[in-house]
Structures are given as C-alpha cells and as structure tokens.
C-alpha cells in the first residue's frame, strides 16, 4: 500500500527529533537513544532512582500524540499489521536486537551518526540493509 511522500513534514519532524537529542544532552548529558533509555529502565540492578529522567522521557514520548491531536486537532494516520504472530516475533527481534547491539534508529542512527561514530555507522548500515532485505522478501518473494 502506497503512502504519501511528505518531505517538508518529515524534515521538520526530523529536526524536532534532533532538537530533542540536543536538549537531552545539554540538560542531562544523555544520548537520546530510545532503546538505551528503555533498556536501562528495565535493568533494576543498574537503574533505579538515577534513571528517573529516562522514565519521564518515555512518558513524554507516549504523551506526544495526545498533545499533537490537541494542538492540531487531528489524529495522525496509522496502519499497523494485524498479523499478531508476525508482530510478536518482530517485537522480540527488535527488543533483543536493539538491547544486544546497544542501539536502534535513534541511538545509532540519529545520535551515533551525529557523533561520527564508526560503530554506529556500521550498525545503521547493517540494520537498514537487513530491514530492506526483509521487506523485499516478505513483499516481493513470498
């Protein structure tokens, strides 16, 4: 199913993500990597009180669509697969992979590339390539 190409909204949205990453580093000295923040929250031995700002970050992330709908008066469009077995497997791979590889699209993709990190560049190229190959197989071969 085709989606509309939205260069302006996507560029502006991307810049907001960048602004968020700069604010989090300037204020709290932390990388705005969603999997990293969430994983450390789940790790009770290392987490606890010092990770509370991370909990607030997650709250903000979850509250954002409600704020968006209040500001702009419209709920954004979303199409999520109803193949629950596939979504369950995907969730497991995403959670395991981002925690095991120390980063996801935000940590390695946005923040890592902005630090000019070779490690993040390799990770980003790897997950982009595997994800594109996965989509090719599921949409064009199966």
């Amino acid at each position, binding site marked *: 199913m085709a989606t509309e190409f939205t260069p302006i909204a996507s560029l502006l949205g991307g810049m907001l993500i960048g602004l968020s990453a700069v604010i989090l580093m300037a204020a709290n000295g932390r990388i705005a990597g969603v999997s990293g923040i969430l994983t450390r929250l*789940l790790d009770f031995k290392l987490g606890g009180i010092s990770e509370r700002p991370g909990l*607030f970050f997650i709250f*903000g992330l979850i509250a954002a669509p409600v704020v968006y709908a209040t500001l702009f008066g419209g709920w954004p469009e979303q199409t999520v697969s*109803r193949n629950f077995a596939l979504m369950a497997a995907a969730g497991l791979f*995403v959670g395991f*992979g981002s925690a095991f590889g120390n980063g996801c699209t*935000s*940590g390695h993709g946005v923040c890592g590339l902005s630090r000019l990190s070779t490690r993040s560049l390799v990770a980003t190229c790897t997950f982009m390539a595997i994800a594109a190959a996965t989509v090719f197989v599921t949409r064009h071969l199966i």
Partner: protein
Amino acid sequence: MNIAGLIAGLIFGLGLVLSGMADPAKVLNFLDITGTWDPSLAFVMGGAIAVTLPGYALLRRRTKPLFAKTFAFPSRNDIDPRLLTGAASFGLGWGLSGFCPGPALTAISFAAPGTLVFLPMMVLGMVLARRVAPNSAQPA
C-alpha cells in the same frame, strides 16, 4: 533533570508524529525501494542529523551539562560480533513490522492491536538481551 527528560521526550514524540514515522506503513515503504517507495524517512534522518551534529559539536566545547556532572558521550569504537548480531536482529524485526522502539512507544496511544502485541514482546526481547549479556549498560 526529570522535567528536561519529559520535555525532550515530548519533542521527540511530536517529531515522530509530525514526520509520519509513527505510521509503520511509511517506514515499510521507505524500506521497499523496488516497490511503493516513500523516501520520507531519509528526510527525517537528514533533518535530525542536521540539528544534532552541530548541536553535539557545540556541546562538546562545554565542560558539563546543565543538570548532570558529565556528558555521557559513548566512547567505544570497536566493531564486535555483538554489535552486528544485534543490528541484524533489530533490522529483521524492523523490516517485519515497520516499528522501532521510539515509534512503537509513541504509538501506544493509537492503541492499534498490532502495537499492543508488539510492545510487550519488545520489552521481553530487551530483558532477554540483558540476561544473555548483563554487562552492557553502555548507551548506543
């Protein structure tokens, strides 16, 4: 630090919604180069890096953040099998669903059934990864 975290999370989430990345269909279409390709995600990454790269460069000239003792910039630069295995597993799940951790969390309030199946499994996956490799507290 809590308020700064909340504000950063809100702005991040608004960015995800505005950019269209809270919709897995847009992400999957970015990955579907030979099909119904939608290049929007490249503009999201470009916009984000265009702000973060100079922002981080300016911050590195300062000695410490406003509310914490140090900047926690990651220091590792080695390419180990764990990084590649993790990125490959993440890429597979991302390609199957169109969800990565940020958009999946932001999508909670849309309450799509697929999202509500995806999220607990994602959390389980993270817990499993920490069981397999407990000493991995480093960000990114």
